[in-house]
């Protein structure tokens, strides 16, 4: 065969193969792009980098759709207000705002609700003036409250469908690789883990990353992959990192909190779960965060090491990890700057999504491997039910958070709360709002004694043997009433302002409006 024949025969075979596969034949005409690739990363050149307004337009957002946000900057968040102001300016109406949580700083949403820009809210928590107004009936539709694990499940299974996610990141490259810290010299902010943003990034139809540090490609390691990102918007600031460790997660100096923390530490040490390789989580609230300080000494004395600490990671946890007392840190949310920096620098400090952290239907979620959790409460009732969302004045003032997730999944859940806050009792006949069912709560620690759930007689025995004073919740309730008198019932109205979802997606309770 001649050379020409060979080439012709091969071309015929290529044609035949293409026809069989229903594909075109390569035509070899594509030209090389000679632009320096750093040029391609700039605004206007990259297909993803654009202004906020362009991102909103291109995302296809329409009235009535669902937008989402994370709350890793907590009280320092700037993204929610920035984006919703822009959406209002662009004339959007009837939007459903699905945030992982909302804080005092989101007070400007009140005006956007009044103007019909936002008509539905899903969140883990509400605080401040926004919570106050909503408790009094600001919105027509009730706010839907989910736990962090419950939100992860709802996003994954479609109960909570997100059309466009607006996610703040401390660094992002032009391709959309984003994370909660920055390694560049222009770093402006740091929030550490982006755990609550990861389900949004994965499942939202469109994902917009807002960043205050647009870094050179490739931004590694990254929390959110370019694969999930549609648009990248550079902004002046995504959040004030100094305000992360404020509010519910400040370090306590309150002597009563310290007493409660010490008592909780005694419960842990004598619970039967304080063994080499145990795992632990502390929730927000001064006393529960402080408890970890007091188990440290016993760990050193008894030569006990923890396999991992989970959840909101704090500077205390990082310190114990660096001392070799805690092997790994699993971080869905960095509670302070020290934790955020540890996540950036330490490969043993692992970032997890809300689903991998605490979803009931994710078999591998970390809460399933959790031994001990210490949690706070606004109210506990005589049946061990806990409320962490609605104050005893009927006003929403907290967050569901991971409370019901960790209480349900852990081997031992400990609630730490004072008997009274001012004149408000924390141990009551019935919680104002049910957030964490009593069946999942094992021990309640107050400054007037420790109550153990009757379902856990073995724990009661161990604590008694250790010389701890055990009481019943009925005794604690009666003691509170003796000091403060019998409170009048709250003036609730007939409007439902909030619906509390269980982590399995069922409706567990409602919150009614409080009348003036």
């Amino acid at each position, binding site marked *: 065969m001649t050379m020409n024949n060979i080439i012709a025969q091969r071309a015929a075979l290529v044609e035949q193969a293409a026809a069989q596969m229903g594909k075109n034949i390569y035509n070899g005409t594509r030209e090389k792009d000679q632009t320096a690739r750093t040029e391609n990363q700039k605004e206007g050149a990259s297909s993803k980098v654009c202004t906020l307004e362009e991102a909103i337009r291109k995302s296809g957002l329409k009235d009535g759709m669902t937008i989402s946000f994370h709350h890793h900057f907590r009280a320092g968040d700037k993204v929610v207000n920035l984006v919703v102001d822009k959406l209002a300016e662009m004339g959007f109406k009837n939007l459903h705002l699905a945030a992982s949580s909302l804080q005092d700083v989101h007070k400007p949403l009140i005006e956007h609700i009044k103007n019909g820009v936002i008509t539905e809210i899903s969140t883990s928590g509400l605080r401040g003036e926004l919570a106050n107004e909503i408790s009094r009936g600001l919105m027509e539709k009730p706010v839907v409250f989910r736990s962090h694990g419950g939100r992860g499940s709802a996003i994954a299974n479609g109960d909570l469908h997100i059309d466009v996610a607006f996610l703040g990141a401390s660094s992002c490259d032009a391709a959309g690789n984003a994370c909660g810290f920055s390694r560049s010299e222009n770093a402006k902010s740091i929030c550490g883990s982006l755990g609550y943003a990861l389900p949004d990034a994965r499942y939202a139809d469109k994902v917009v990353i807002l960043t205050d540090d647009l870094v050179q490609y490739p931004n590694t390691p990254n929390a959110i992959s370019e694969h999930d990102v549609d648009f990248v918007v550079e902004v002046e600031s995504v959040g004030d990192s100094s305000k992360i460790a404020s509010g519910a997660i400040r370090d306590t100096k309150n002597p009563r909190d310290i007493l409660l923390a010490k008592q909780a530490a005694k419960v842990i040490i004598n619970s039967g779960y304080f063994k080499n390789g145990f795992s632990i989580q502390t929730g927000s609230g001064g006393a529960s965060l402080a408890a970890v300080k007091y188990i440290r000494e016993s760990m050193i004395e008894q030569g006990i090491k923890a396999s991992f600490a989970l959840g909101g990671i704090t500077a205390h946890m990082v310190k114990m990890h660096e001392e070799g007392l805690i092997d790994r840190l699993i971080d869905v949310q960095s509670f302070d700057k020290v934790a955020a920096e540890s996540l950036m620098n330490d490969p043993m400090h692992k970032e997890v999504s809300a689903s991998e952290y605490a979803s009931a239907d994710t078999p591998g979620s970390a809460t399933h491997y959790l031994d001990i959790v210490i949690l706070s409460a606004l109210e506990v009732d005589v049946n061990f039910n806990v409320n962490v969302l609605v104050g005893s*004045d009927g006003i929403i003032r907290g967050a569901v958070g991971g409370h019901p997730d960790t209480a349900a999944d852990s081997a031992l859940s400990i609630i730490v709360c004072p008997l009274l*806050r001012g004149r408000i009792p924390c141990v009551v006949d019935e919680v104002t709002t049910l957030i964490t069912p009593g069946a999942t709560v094992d021990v309640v620690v107050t400054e007037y004694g420790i109550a153990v759930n009757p379902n856990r007689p073995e724990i009661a025995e161990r604590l008694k043997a250790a010389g701890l004073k055990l009481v019943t919740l009925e005794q604690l309730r009666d003691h509170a009433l003796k000091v403060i008198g019998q*409170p*009048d019932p*709250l003036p609730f109205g007939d409007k439902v302002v909030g619906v509390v979802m269980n982590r399995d997606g069922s409706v567990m309770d409602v919150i009614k409006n409080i009348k003036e």
Partner: protein
Amino acid sequence: MKEAFAGTLESGDILVRIAPAENKGLEIDLESTVAYQFGRQIKTVITETLTGLGINDAKVTATDKGALDCTIRARVTAAAVRATGKDVWKD
């Protein structure tokens, strides 16, 4: 009777102002962080404390931060003593 104060605005305390009555009887203006559950009870304690001291006409302005009844009684009594000049503890 002259205007007098007792108490503070600290958590767990109550600031009580007593002034001469503008109308007959006790006029109580209460602002409280626990008004829903304890407003009624706080007003009763203030009224009982004052009438117990023989004061039936006065204007009372109270700002409560979750004080217990014993604290309320003590602050109202102190304010009444300052307002009337009659030392109930000595006399």
